[in-house]
């Protein structure tokens, strides 16, 4: 009983600290990588390679004056950044980032908690992200934030459907909504493939059982919808500075602006982590004989940061797309494709169960 509580307290603090640290690191990483891609140096003053720049920025924003314009709706104006940041952090409660370690004689799973409906929880928290945007836009009592807020909330709700639909085929294959069980179903390789000609049967030992192998379309749909859901380039319409100044957070400054900023990066990491869990086998990967708890963690981090790098790369490469094209892509492209792929993948599984057992 007490051991359970102590372990819970440790887990809660470690996960929160780790998420915050990862977010600050990601912000630095983005500035550095985009700078390199544009032949600049990027931040290089604070700490080695400018590593502490994000921290310095945070401290600076903390001490900045908060300019709130005359016409705001005070309650909603304060609630908006809080409602943007809290669900973003809470989504991490169910993300498993490693196997387990033994602590005080207890086997501790490396995640805050493993809910039976973990996947649904992550999606539900993603759907709450729209509140920060819509309330910030409305509460500011200003034209640009209102336009930006309603525009980006329409974008977020449109792509949220494609996002959830693209995850359904994986649940069909795994048969569970618990993220830990989904990862456990992907561990290992295909082994010897019987129906291949003899000399190449061994090739199955090289192919991991990750869902991305059979669910590649779902993975691509998920990433496309995920980029739009996090409001990142090329779908960063909410902050289209050429047309909307800064979108929904035009009238925000100081620590409240920092909260919106943090929430965006937490969402990037969440989407990457969920993609790794659902499609890329979570912590599955190479193990070396020493430090057995470390390798799953390293595998998970490595895969997640690869996807985070993809997000950054997209931003540095692609121009913003037009709003009407964005909505058409969501409703006429991603949603029908996700539904179609769901039908195809359910058909494949039915045929496989009926004829191959």
């Amino acid at each position, binding site marked *: 009983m007490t051991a359970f509580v102590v372990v819970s307290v440790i887990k809660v603090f470690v996960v929160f600290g780790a998420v915050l640290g990862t977010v600050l690191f990601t912000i630095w990483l983005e500035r550095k990588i985009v700078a390199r891609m544009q032949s600049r140096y990027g931040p290089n003053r604070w700490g080695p390679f400018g590593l502490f720049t994000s921290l310095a920025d945070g401290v600076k924003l903390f001490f900045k004056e908060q300019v709130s314009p005359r016409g705001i709706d005070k309650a909603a104006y304060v609630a908006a950044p809080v409602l943007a940041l809290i669900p973003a952090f809470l989504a991490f409660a169910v993300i498993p980032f490693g196997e387990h370690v033994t602590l005080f004689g207890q086997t501790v799973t490396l995640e805050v908690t493993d809910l039976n409906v973990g996947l649904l929880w992550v999606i*539900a928290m993603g*759907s709450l992200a729209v509140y920060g945007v819509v309330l910030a836009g409305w509460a500011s009592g200003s034209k640009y934030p209102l336009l930006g807020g309603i525009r980006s909330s329409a974008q977020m709700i449109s792509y949220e459907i494609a996002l959830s639909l693209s995850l359904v085929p994986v649940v069909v294959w795994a*048969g569970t909504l618990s993220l830990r069980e989904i990862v456990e179903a992907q561990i290992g390789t295909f082994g010897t493939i019987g129906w291949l000609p003899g000399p190449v049967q061994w090739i199955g030992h090289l192919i991991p059982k990750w869902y991305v192998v059979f669910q590649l379309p779902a993975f691509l749909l998920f990433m496309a919808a995920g980029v739009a859901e996090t409001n990142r380039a090329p779908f960063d319409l909410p902050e289209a500075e050429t047309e909307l100044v800064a979108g929904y957070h035009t009238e925000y400054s100081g620590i409240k602006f920092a909260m919106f900023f943090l929430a965006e990066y937490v969402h990037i990491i969440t989407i990457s982590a969920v993609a790794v869990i659902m499609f890329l086998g979570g912590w599955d990967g190479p193990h070396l004989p020493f430090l057995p708890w470390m390798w799953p963690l390293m595998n998970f981090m490595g895969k997640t940061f690869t996807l985070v790098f993809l997000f950054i790369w997209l931003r540095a490469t692609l121009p913003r797309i037009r709003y009407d094209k964005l909505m058409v892509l969501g409703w006429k492209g991603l949603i029908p494709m996700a539904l179609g792929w769901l039908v195809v993948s359910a058909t494949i599984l039915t045929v496989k169960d009926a004829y191959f057992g």
Partner: protein
Amino acid sequence: MHQYVFVVIGVLMAIAAVRLVTTKNVVHGALYLLMVLAGAAAIFILLLAEFVGWVQVLLYIGAVVVLLLFGLMLTRAPIGRTALDNQSRALAALVAGAIFAMTSMVLVRAFDGQMIDFSQTLTVRTLGGVLFTKYVLPFEVVSVLLLAALVGAVVLAKRDE
């Protein structure tokens, strides 16, 4: 223990519900509605129905209240601090009281004396198993209902132009 948590959630929900109908600002009203719905989700989770609880968060908080907020932003009139009130308070109280009495009666009758067995949890799989074998027809009817709603939305949109 369960009882105490239930009472705390219930009181918070009641306060939020009262503020919801007394506030003069409709967007604040939507925020109070959010609190009431979150409380309902918490009660579902407390009663071991975690899937229903999170669906409550996903659909009601994540979708229906957003729809409400969108509706408020389209109409210029009730935005902001304009007082929204009319003379039908007594009638409204009567209707609300009647609905409350009726639903409580139906619920008490339906679950009379039944207790939840806290030793076993209701998993998604149990729920899915029942929904897709025993209640197939209602499930398919839901799709027709959703289709009707969709057609209604489209017709509304087209009439506007």
